[in-house]
C-alpha cells in the first residue's frame, strides 16, 4: 500500500525555513500569506500499514520536535 508521511515542525517551535519563505513571498508580490511552515514528505510502499506509526516514532520523525501525519493513498 502506498503511504505518505507528512512531517511538520511542532507548533510553537521556531521554524526559520517557514519564516524565510513567508518573508520571500511578499517580495514577489504575493500578499496576505501567513503561518507558513516547511516540513518533509516521505513516500513509501508498505505491506503492513499498521507498522507506519512505529516507523514514524522510531525513525521517520523526531517526536520531540516534529508532528507526523500518516496518509494512506490506497
Amino acid at each position, binding site marked *: 500500500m502506498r503511504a505518505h508521511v507528512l512531517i511538520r515542525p511542532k507548533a510553537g517551535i*521556531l521554524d*526559520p525555513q517557514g519564516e524565510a519563505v513567508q518573508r520571500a513571498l511578499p517580495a514577489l508580490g504575493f500578499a496576505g500569506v501567513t503561518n507558513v511552515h516547511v516540513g518533509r514528505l516521505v513516500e513509501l510502499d508498505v505491506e503492513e500499514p499498521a507498522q507506519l506509526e512505529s516507523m514514524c516514532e522510531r525513525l521517520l520523525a523526531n517526536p*520531540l*520536535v516534529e508532528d507526523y501525519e500518516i496518509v494512506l493513498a490506497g
Partner: protein
Amino acid sequence: MKFGVLRFPGSCDEVDALGAARRVADAELLWHGDSDLKGADAIVVPGGFSYGDYLRAGAIARFAPVMESVIDFAEDGGLVLGICNGFQVLCEARLLPGALLVNANRRFTFRQVELEVLNSGGSFTRGCSIGERLSIPAKHSWGRYHADGETLAAMDRAGQIVLRYAQGENFNGSVHEIAGVSNERGNVFGLMPHPEHAVDELMGGSTDGLKIFESMRLTVEGAHV
C-alpha cells in the same frame, strides 16, 4: 586509559578527536560497522555528517552496529562524549535529552565561541571551575538546542546543563543559551562546539578544548584507583 573514537561514513572530525585524545591518553578509531569497542574506557562520537545527515542529522547513525554497543556501554556507566554531529547522534539515540534544530539564522556558521562552565562537578568538566570561560570553535548548521520546559527545569535541577554560550555568543538560538548537556547520571555528555579543534596554540590560540579530554581521563583513572 584508552579512548575509542567512532568513525561513520561521513565523519570528518574523527582524526582531530583522535589526536586530541592522544594528547592525554591512548586512543583508537572504531569503525561504525563493528560492534567491538576494543576495550575502550571512554567513547568519543565525533563531528561530521554521518550517513550524509539524511532524514535528520544523526538519525541513521544512531542505528549503526557500533552505536548499539555504545548504548550498552553508556547504560553500564561508561563515559561517552558527543561532539557536534556526535551530540546529534546521542540525542537521536535518546542517550541525551532534547534535540538539535536548524540554526535560527538558517546559516552554516563557523566561529570561535566563548562558553561558560555551569557545572564543574561532572565527569567531563572536573578540570574546570564554575564560571570559567572556554574559547572553542563551533561550525554547524543544525545546532539550536531544544527541549521542552519541563525537561529543561528537570535538567537544571540535576545540574545537566553543563555549558552555555556566554552573553552575545548564542549564534544558533539555543534555548537558555545551552551549549552542552549531560544525561541525568552524568556519564554521557554532548556539545555543539568542537573541543578537539582547540588543543594546540596553533589552533586559534586556545587549548581550552583539552580540558574536556583531560577531565575524562581524570574521571576514568580516578575510577580505577
